[in-house]
């Protein structure tokens, strides 16, 4: 049963209206005879609907009262009037009443307008509830995600902090080992028969330094979003070849390279040097022949958008089943023969970050034992 508040300054009309509403099956909660009183009673009685005349004496007419009630209370208001001039209708419209009835009214019309207003209000409320519930769920979910995000940031910062600490401390410890070995080797009376043993330890210590450095670079790559620029790889490759020659001075190296032009540009950054260095150093390190021969060539990929840099070695080669895994750190830990430390993992990470690709083929197709061909493609700069 819906409760209705009737508002009209003419008590006879109000009473009639009340009577008609009752006949139509509604309950009335009372009658108000002015705008001010309507607001008060609405607050006090909280009816489901208000039927209100527009023209009333006092400071507030029906339109003013409807405006105040709509703003303060969630109660639909239907306006009643004997006059229907343009100006009044315009004012009435502006307070968004739930309905409008012209006097003299027809009972059936009252019923239709009242039913429509009540139905509309109910629908609005339902919609509001769904909306509120959705909003609640969204904010709950957002809060959850924020929490997860904070947790992730915390974990990441912590991992970075620990990695940094580890790098720093291992470097310090390694410095002690490295320098001690170095000192032993320069002592004039250090027995020759132990020198090789010390050299082995010395080389291992150097490997620790390299490993730490590579891990550091790898962590930078994994942070993503690196800035790229145009890089000329001709001087870069020349420099890397020099560097490898210097660091692998124990071996005789024949690294041939032939670049048709002086400027071959790709998109990348300073980590590109690590890419070329790691591939080349790897090729040299695993080669058991002396002299070590590596051919470096640069060509264009068929579709034209990429440069293709090839490093052909005559090392032990990579068997078919390992051609993918050499680039993946975790899968060949137990295979000493092909263990490359973090070198090739690093290469792949960096190249992919530059939107390029890297893979290995046989230097002579079908005969992997004749050496490998490491191929890098990079977008033209």
């Amino acid at each position, binding site marked *: 049963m819906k409760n209705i508040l009737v508002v009209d300054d003419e008590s006879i009309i109000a009473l009639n209206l009340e009577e008609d509403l009752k006949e139509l099956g509604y309950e009335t909660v009372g009658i108000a005879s002015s705008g001010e009183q309507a607001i008060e009673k609405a607050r006090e009685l909280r009816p489901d609907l208000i039927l209100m005349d527009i023209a009333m004496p006092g400071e507030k007419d029906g339109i003013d009262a409807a405006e105040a009630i709509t703003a303060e209370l969630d109660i639909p208001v239907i306006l009643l009037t004997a006059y229907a001039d343009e100006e009044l209708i315009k004012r009435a419209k502006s307070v968004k009443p739930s309905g409008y009835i012209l006097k003299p009214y027809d009972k059936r019309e009252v019923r239709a307008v009242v039913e429509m207003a009540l139905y509309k209000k109910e629908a609005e409320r339902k919609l509001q509830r769904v909306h509120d519930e959705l909003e609640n769920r969204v904010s709950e979910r957002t809060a959850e995600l924020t929490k997860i995000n904070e947790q992730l940031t915390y974990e990441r910062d912590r991992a970075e902090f620990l990695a940094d600490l580890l790098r720093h401390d291992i470097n*310090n410890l390694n*410095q002690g080992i*490295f*320098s*001690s070995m*170095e*000192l032993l080797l*320069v*002592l004039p009376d250090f027995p020759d028969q132990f020198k090789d043993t010390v050299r082995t330890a010395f080389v291992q210590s150097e490997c620790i330094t390299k490993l730490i450095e590579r891990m550091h670079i790898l962590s930078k790559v994994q942070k993503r979003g690196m800035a790229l620029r145009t890089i000329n790889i001709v001087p870069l490759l020349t420099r890397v070849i020099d560097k490898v020659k210097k660091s692998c001075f124990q071996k005789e190296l024949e690294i041939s390279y032939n670049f048709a032009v002086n400027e071959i540009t790709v998109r990348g950054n300073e980590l590109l040097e690590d890419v070329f260095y790691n591939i080349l150093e790897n090729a040299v390190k695993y080669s058991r022949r002396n002299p070590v021969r590596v051919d470096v060539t640069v060509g264009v990929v068929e579709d034209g958008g990429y440069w293709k840099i090839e490093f052909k070695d005559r090392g032990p080669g990579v068997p078919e089943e390992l051609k993918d895994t050499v680039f993946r750190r975790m899968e060949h830990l137990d295979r000493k023969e092909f263990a490359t430390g973090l070198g090739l993992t690093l290469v792949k990470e960096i190249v992919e970050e530059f939107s390029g690709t890297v893979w290995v083929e046989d230097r002579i197709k079908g005969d992997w034992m004749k050496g490998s061909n490491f191929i890098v493609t990079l977008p033209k700069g």
Partner: protein
Amino acid sequence: MVTVFVVDDEPVLHEIYYRMLSYNGDSVIAHAYDGEEAVNRYKQMNPKPDIILMDYRMPVKNGIEATEKILQVDANAKIVFVSADIAVKKAAIATGACSFIAKTFTREELLTCIEHIVQEKRKTESEI
């Protein structure tokens, strides 16, 4: 002979520096294990060392802060940064360090760097 003041929180490295330098005929004349100790010790030293070998990551005061304070006391102090934190190289040089050596360094790197700085220093002194 070059006189050296070693500042590093890692005792083993003091030992290493001592051996490397004394073997080369140079001398470690003082030790400090954190930045603050380095500043205090430097103030008291007389004569001052030719070179200060300065670590970065240390308790109380880091190498940059210590360098700043030491240069306030003695603008002519020759400070060589030796650190695994390559990222602080720029800051170290901007603060007034003469040189930066990255750990892991070789004996040759260290000795060449020291020799170079000492030669420069003596050249300037003789010109004055």
